[in-house]
């Protein structure tokens, strides 16, 4: 083991401020409303290459809406999304997936009838070169490609320690494992940006610790940039490099965990000071 890698793990574990300069994604003045209901108002923040970025806030603060804007399920009425140095046009979610953004969902969106392996192979679709129909026409090439991808997926399965459930239909798995498979499917895409919507919701302490470890390891070993929504403050303060806080669809705080901990507006929002 070289020293630097060890240091990095130590750093992220004790939450030293790591330095990140290069911007991967930026949202600028995003406003989103459904009918007359404003979900997001004039939100701006950035996500930098290599960091773990947390989005927190009370229920209904607009965190999931923000994620849905980033991955293209929602199209904001105002504002811009910049990804990888370019302003992004109005793209569909599957096109955004091909650009290199993968995600998981708060209430698990797996292909329940398919095995763990098939779920993760499906997660690699953005990496598969031959088109959908080419697969039918040139069998040999397709098989070679399939084997390559299979190897990659097996590595991720080893990494997440889910070897024993490779062939199990995921609908039959317990909740905690389903969450892990969903993470695996997102990892399989080897995306530039990984969005995790409450990866630890509904987990017990042990499962949470496992999930924390996986997230840190993914970030460290693969260098994947991660943006996550989480309610468990302890977890957020431990693993995030920077935190953005939303409340009532507005950005009320942005900074390192230490800065956020001492931010008066954030404290008010969480302790419920009346808004006027």
């Amino acid at each position: 083991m070289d020293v630097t890698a060890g240091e990095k793990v130590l750093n992220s574990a004790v939450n030293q401020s790591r330095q990140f300069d290069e911007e991967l994604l930026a949202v600028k003045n995003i406003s989103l409303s459904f009918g007359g209901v404003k979900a997001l108002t004039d939100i701006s923040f950035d996500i930098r290459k290599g960091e773990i970025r947390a989005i927190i806030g009370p229920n209904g603060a607009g965190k999931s809406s923000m994620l849905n804007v980033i991955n293209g399920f929602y199209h904001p009425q105002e504002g811009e999304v910049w990804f990888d140095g370019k302003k992004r046009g109005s793209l569909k979610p599957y096109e955004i997936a091909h650009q290199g953004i993968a995600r998981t969902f708060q209430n698990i969106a797996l292909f329940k009838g398919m095995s763990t392996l098939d779920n993760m192979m499906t997660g690699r679709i953005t990496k598969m070169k031959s088109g959908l129909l080419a697969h039918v026409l040139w069998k040999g090439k397709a098989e070679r490609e399939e084997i390559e991808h299979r190897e990659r997926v097996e590595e991720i399965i080893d990494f997440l320690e889910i070897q024993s459930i490779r062939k199990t239909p995921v609908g039959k798995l317990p909740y905690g494992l389903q969450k892990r498979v969903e993470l695996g499917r997102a990892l399989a895409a080897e995306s530039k940006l990984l969005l995790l919507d409450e990866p630890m919701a509904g987990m017990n302490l042990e499962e949470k610790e496992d999930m924390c470890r996986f997230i840190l390891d993914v970030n460290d070993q693969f260098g994947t940039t991660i943006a996550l929504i989480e309610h468990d403050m302890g977890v957020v303060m431990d693993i995030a490099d920077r935190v953005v806080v939303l409340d009532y669809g507005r950005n009320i705080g942005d900074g390192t965990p230490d800065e956020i901990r001492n931010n008066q507006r954030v404290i008010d929002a969480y302790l419920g000071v009346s808004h006027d």
Partner: protein
Amino acid sequence: MSPAILNTIEVILNGLMAGVMYSLVALGFVLIFKASGIFNYAQGVFALFAALTLVGFQTGQIPFAHVINVVLGTEYHHWGEGLNNFIAIVLTMLVMVGLAWLVERLVLRHLVNQEQIILFMATIGLAFFMEGLGDLMWGANIKVLDIGIPSGGSFWWEDVTKTWAPAESDYYGMYIDVLDVWAAVVAIILVIALTLFSQFTKTGRALRAVADDHQAALTVGISLRTIWVIVWSIAGFVALVAGIMWGAKSGVQFSLSLIALKALPVLILGGFTSIPGAIIGGLIIGVGEKLFEYGIGPLIGGATENWFAYVLALFFLMFRPQGLFGDKIIERV
């Protein structure tokens, strides 16, 4: 064996064969329903349209000849001798793929996220439109579809089964239409091919993914529109096979589109989302209606084949609405 038993076996065999024909149509419904949640009422018309187009290519008909002649005052009908079977089938398949693309482009795309009933109504509209289009393109006369599949009773089978009965009985052997046997073989190959395709190819995996969860499919980078075009193309291919078999059996006529109605009870039995269900549902209905007609029909005046399947489906709706193999319907309260 006594002639009575042999007769019953014959009835069951013929029921199985008839069932295969129903299954062929039901398959197309299941494919589309699984991938997009649409009950495609037009599936029967697709089969008709495919058969019409195939005959058209085979016999060298000029599409829209009637319209052209009326407008230009000409007398064109055929452009030549026609194409050989293989080329005609490939061309027809291309037409079906084009049709799938058009359906996505002109209909489905504009109805995304609409209520199921609206999509269903759209397919009814599509059915009538396609029927009219088929008429306009290829004419309304009944056509003979012959792509060289042997048909007629099998003398060999008649002779073999004749020896099973005691010599003194005047049993004359079983009747089985060779065409039906071919249809069964084709259906089996089709189902195996579809299963292999969906289990072992990337596209198949994408199809299953879309059938499972639209939202998740989008996030992993699957384009729903591409998948819909592929699914409707496959359904078009299944319609072509069904059209060939039904057309060869009873001629290509517009009542062919009504086989959609016969597929309905098959789907209720087998479940709307299960490919094996479509096959087994078809077989049960085929055998059921033939046996019922044979055993009980004479007691109640016959012609039970017209309604038996629907009554059976009604019982299923009461006691097992998801069908034999369909996904269990669980509504969260």
